[in-house]
């Protein structure tokens, strides 16, 4: 059997996700998950070594949610991201080298060194930006979806946010407007159980963020956020609805951040056991195992993808370190479009 035929045979019995995407797409998804993981490990190390300043929020453990959400998106579809936004950025198509350049504060960075981790963006690939304000991206995504409608495009806007963000008024206002105007927007809540130190049990009176969808007469779907198939299939259903003019969807991906909230976290609000337990549900391990079991990728191919990701990350860091420092004379540059200040 040729590889293509083997793939086809193996795939025919499989669920939608493995039938919808071809081998290249699946390989690319795994590659992106590795890129995210290694990117964040690399960033973490650089931060610890004092090469990157500020703070950063790592999404290690949440890669399936980011990649599964973006796999089937077009370049012209928008995403809005969060303070925990590295994964979304890579998943939507950004170049890790240019992200590192940003983290190192270089002119080559996506934001010319002005934004850093919390404002990482790649407008070219449709990422309108991470956001330092919890919930800040919610209405912005609705606005992008409104623009799509006005421009008569059939693109969608995908809005990432956390469980904690769903307690902000912006969540309520954004979902309500998206619903009454039936806009093509997906609200993807990455519920990692905590908003910083506060568990969802303490911050909301319902069990699931998706339970809130009914207040907007909007479908609310809950998926295992550590299984890329589950995430991706839910997102595909929701994008189809959205492109079809049927309005917004709220999807809740149940996941977990393995690292602390940010670099200052002492993990006082959760147990070591909980963290260890979630490590056993690693989204990359899960996906890899499936790809191998279903005969879609061999061990050697997986290994090659991993190594390539590692090499790309190492090269990206090298690229970033050699980047150009902005000049202090340009501190007030790009405040206004015309250049006035």
């Amino acid at each position, binding site marked *: 059997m040729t590889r293509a035929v083997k793939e086809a045979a193996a795939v025919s019995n499989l669920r939608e996700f493995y039938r919808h995407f071809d081998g290249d797409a699946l390989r690319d998804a795994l590659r992106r998950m590795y890129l995210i993981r290694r990117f964040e490990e690399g960033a973490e190390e650089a931060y610890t070594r004092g090469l990157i300043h500020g703070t950063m929020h790592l999404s290690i453990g949440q890669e399936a949610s980011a990649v599964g959400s973006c796999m089937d998106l077009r370049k012209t579809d928008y995403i809005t991201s969060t303070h925990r936004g590295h994964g979304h950025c890579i998943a939507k198509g950004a170049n890790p080298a240019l992200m590192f350049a940003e983290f190192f504060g270089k002119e080559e960075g996506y934001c010319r060194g002005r*934004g850093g981790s919390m404002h990482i963006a790649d407008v070219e690939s449709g990422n309108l*930006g991470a956001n330092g304000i919890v919930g800040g991206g919610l*209405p912005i995504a609705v606005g*992008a979806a409104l623009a799509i409608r006005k*421009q008569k495009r059939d693109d969608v806007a995908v809005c990432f946010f956390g469980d904690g963000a769903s307690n902000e008024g912006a969540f309520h206002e954004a979902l309500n*407007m998206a619903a*009454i105007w039936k806009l093509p927007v997906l609200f993807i809540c990455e519920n990692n159980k905590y908003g910083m130190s506060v568990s969802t049990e303490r911050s909301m009176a319902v069990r699931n963020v998706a339970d809130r969808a009914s207040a907007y007469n909007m479908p609310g779907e809950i998926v295992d956020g550590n299984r890329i198939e589950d995430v991706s299939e839910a997102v595909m259903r929701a994008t189809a609805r959205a492109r079809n003019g049927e309005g917004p969807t709220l999807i809740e991906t149940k996941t977990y951040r393995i690292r602390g909230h940010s670099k200052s976290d002492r993990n006082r609000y959760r147990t070591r056991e909980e963290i260890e337990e979630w490590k056993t549900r690693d989204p990359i391990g899960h996906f890899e195992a499936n790809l191998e079991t279903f005969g879609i990728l061999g061990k050697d191919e997986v290994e090659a993808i991993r190594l390539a990701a590692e090499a790309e990350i190492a090269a990206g860091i090298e690229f970033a370190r050699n980047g150009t420092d902005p000049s202090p004379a340009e501190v007030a540059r*790009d405040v206004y479009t015309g250049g006035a200040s």
Partner: protein
Amino acid sequence: MRELSYAQAVQEALAQAMEADSRVFLMGEDIGVYGGAFQVTGDLVHRFGEDRVMDTPIAELGAAGVAVGAALAGCRPVFEFQFSDFATLAMEQIVNQAAKIRFMLGGKVSVPLVMRFPAGSGTGAAAQHSQSLDAWFAHVPGLKVVQPSTPHDAKGLLLAAIDDPDPVMVFEHKLLYKTKGDVPEEAYRVPIGKAVVRREGRHVTIVATAIMVHRALEAAEVLKGEGIEAEVIDLRTLRPLDTQTIIDSVKKTSRLVCVYEGVKTLGIGAEISAMIAESEAFDYLDAPIVRLGGVEAPIPYNPVLEKAAVPQSDGIVASVRSLVTGRI
């Protein structure tokens, strides 16, 4: 020339902008069939349809964010706050997002957004519907802030704001909506960032904003009878400030009075005064710089108190007189 009210002038600018550019649309509370709380949008919804004159739910933060997102994605939203006071609910989107996105993203995007703020006291609507918060916005890099005082400028500055690639905040004074003035029919622009000398004089410079321009001009007329010739500058743009026009005037008159409705402390007059005090005009000053601003209190409901809470023309006359007398 044709006369229009200030509200009509704003409406004409909105209509012309929407006609000329399909990316322009309006958002706000009750701007559709109601015509806006101050009847500024009037019948525009019937002319342009509900998609371009969009009533929003009562959700200022979210709606402002929708405008930001639409601007980022290629539209040109013009957002009406029903009262400028409600901007307090949307400062997040205005200040953290609209004003900063371009900078934070290294200049890769622009946010061509216009927000309109009916502001000021005098309608008996009390403390939560009468504020003049323009100084807050003028403190924020990334925003531009204009404050037209005439129907002519209301139209021209708004059209310039809609053209502008960056977020422009337009402060409209509620008491001016019904005032009338000459307004050309064509779609002209008044440049953002340029003050204008409304009346020439040589004894004192009065820099005023919005409705205070008219009170300053009234005061100047009275002062003229006393032999005091006041130069009256209409600031028009609060950010970026037209420093040169003010400096030139002060160098000529040697005295400066700033008149504004916002609370005196840290109102726009504080900036004008400080700008002059650190400029080349400092050496020309013959007297302290006087500020007449709102009293250090919320706006009261009682109409007599309400009037007492902000500068009136007799107060301007008295201040200028005591500043100039004996020093001419």
